[in-house]
């Protein structure tokens, strides 16, 4: 018997065109379901690429070293508590001797060590011009370890730190606000920085390229001019102001020379913990950026799955809607079914016709859903800073899913149509 698929598809589309409003309402569940799956997958994909990209920009090989509370029995294995850093007594912090010993022990694995201490947020002013800043004291390793690029002048040096000099590396954005964008001209100039009512003068020795954190800029409402950028001064210059102990550190960022930064992290942890075996409360904690990246991606995956399950429920409801309308359609077209059977249609022909119709409804709904989801996803990921479209995989998945819904929910009504008695069907008014 002729299973003319093309003819069936034509008839199904014809039927949809004849009942536009009804078709649209029926498809709504599918449209919303597919649309949200595609939208969420797109945003999730973009977000996760964004976060991992940003983490990589901060140094994918970096390892954070900090102090954490010694876990008691209760929260042993609790990931969150192992990630929480705590403040040690100042004199118990990491010392230069420890770090030198660490580097001497693992010269192949342990790279430059960055340390920093925040002074606070403030404002650089010059006449009527201003630039908002966060002031950080950093050592000479900080900018290279965090991949911050010097575009004019020089990085901070060890001597700047030792002498606690009043020198600064500022962002190109600050140069735009204060020096009219002349990065070379800014070198050697003084910047007057107000922090907590005090004014400090620093000589600009270098300018770095400011890269905007896309996620922060999406959330932040500050205008372009008011965005705060980091102003780096020697660590000891900050320590002298805050009075914190020179040569002791609470937090380290160590660049790994080996690609297996997680292995290097545990070497570091074991080495540094030897200094703290007798401390009853605290121990050394480490976190490789790589681990963070993995965690963030797996969190995003879990979130995507959870939301997809909810979207799946919407698809289920949509499928039931399709089934309902197909049952109505079968009843409305009882005479047509009878006529077709009289003209020689087999039960299989009729079943196929209605399954195709149901699949077409779902596919058209799915297509609209994909378009809507792509728009939503694009808009959402645009807001988060990385505009992205749906992946081919998610489109194929959505298509396959709508088709499966069409077959699954169309089968029962189609079977009902196929099993109609032709005599009864022809007599139906």
């Amino acid at each position, binding site marked *: 018997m002729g299973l*003319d698929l093309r003819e069936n598809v034509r008839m199904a589309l*014809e039927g949809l065109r004849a009942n536009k409003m009804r078709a649209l309402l029926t498809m709504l569940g599918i449209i919303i379901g597919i649309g949200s799956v595609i939208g969420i997958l797109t945003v999730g994909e973009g977000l996760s690429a964004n976060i991992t990209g940003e983490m990589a920009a901060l140094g994918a090989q970096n390892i954070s070293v900090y102090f954490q509370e010694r876990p008691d029995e209760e929260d042993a294995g609790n990931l969150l508590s192992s990630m929480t850093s705590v403040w040690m007594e100042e004199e118990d912090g990491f010392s230069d001797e420890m770090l030198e010993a660490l580097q001497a022990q693992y010269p192949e694995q342990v790279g430059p060590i960055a340390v920093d201490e925040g002074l606070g947020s403030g404002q650089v002013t010059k006449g009527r011009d201003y630039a908002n800043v966060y002031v950080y004291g950093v050592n000479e390793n900080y900018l290279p370890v965090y991949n911050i690029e010097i575009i004019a002048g020089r990085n901070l040096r060890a001597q700047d730190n030792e002498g606690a000099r009043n020198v600064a590396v500022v962002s190109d954005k600050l140069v735009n606000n204060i020096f009219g964008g002349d990065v070379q001209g800014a070198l050697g100039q003084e910047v007057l920085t107000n922090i907590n009512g005090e004014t400090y003068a620093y000589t600009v020795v270098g300018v770095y390229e400011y890269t905007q954190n896309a996620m922060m800029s999406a959330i932040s409402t500050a205008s372009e001019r008011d965005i705060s950028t980091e102003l780096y001064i020697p660590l000891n210059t900050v320590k002298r102001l805050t009075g914190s102990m020179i040569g002791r550190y609470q937090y380290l960022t160590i660049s790994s020379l080996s690609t297996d930064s997680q292995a290097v992290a545990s070497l570091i942890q074991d080495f540094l913990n030897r200094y703290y075996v007798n401390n009853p409360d605290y121990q050394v904690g480490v976190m490789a950026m790589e681990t963070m990246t993995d965690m963030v991606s797996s969190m995003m995956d879990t979130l995507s799955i959870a939301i997809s399950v909810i979207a799946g429920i919407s698809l289920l409801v949509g499928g039931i809607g399709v089934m309902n309308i197909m049952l109505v359609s079968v009843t409305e077209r009882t005479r047509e079914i009878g006529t077709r*059977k*009289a*003209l020689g*249609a087999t039960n299989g022909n009729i079943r196929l016709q209605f399954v195709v119709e149901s699949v077409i409804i779902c596919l058209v709904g799915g297509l609209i859903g994909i378009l809507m989801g792509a728009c939503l996803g694009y808009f959402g990921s645009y807001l988060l800073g990385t505009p992205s479209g749906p992946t081919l995989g998610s489109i194929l998945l959505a298509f396959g899913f709508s088709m499966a819904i069409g077959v699954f929910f169309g089968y029962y009504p189609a079977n009902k149509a196929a099993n109609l008695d032709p005599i009864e069907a022809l007599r139906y008014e």
Partner: protein
Amino acid sequence: MESIIAMRGIIKRFYIGQPNELEILHGIDLDVAAGEFLSIVGASGSGKSTLMNLIGALDRPTEGSYFLDGEDVGQADDLSLSAIRCKKVGFVFQNFNLIPRTNALKNVELPMMYAGVSPRRRTQRAMELLAMVEMEDRMYHQPNELSGGQKQRVAIARAMANDPAIILADEPTGALDSKTGRLVMDLFHRLNRDQGKTVVLITHNGELAQETSRVVTMRDGMLYEEGC
């Protein structure tokens, strides 16, 4: 002469085994030769429709044997019944039963689609058939754009699609005015005369029946030849 329809001792009962079991046909013998134009007349409730459903292979007899152009309808399963209807029977209904939202050409192609004829051949044949019923300039019209007489002509072209053994017409002029009804009857005569097509006409209109070559009457589930 060769029999197209050969019915022997046909009994049809409904609700078998239930308290309201009902026997509609009480043992019918009917032979229709190739090329005959037969009309079956009878009042409503006489069993006329039940007999028509059996002739058209829409249903199986409870007892008795029925061969339609050599095919054993009595023993056929559902799939074979579909095939018999497809190839051997051309239905023409009182209310046309054209498939809505499907143009005249596609309607005529439909039985050929179910018969597995290739799209090109069935379009070609459908065009020829529509030309035969003088509907070639309305091929692409939807059923709701056609008058009653035009619809019935399309339906007749559709009935002829698979070159069936019989044309089974159930009150084909019942929904038409007398003038268009006349045109439709002329068309049946032409098919019968020019193409030697066997036509079975079911009607309660004695006047129409009189113009056919043979008339049989249904009365209370029994069949009587005219004049008996």
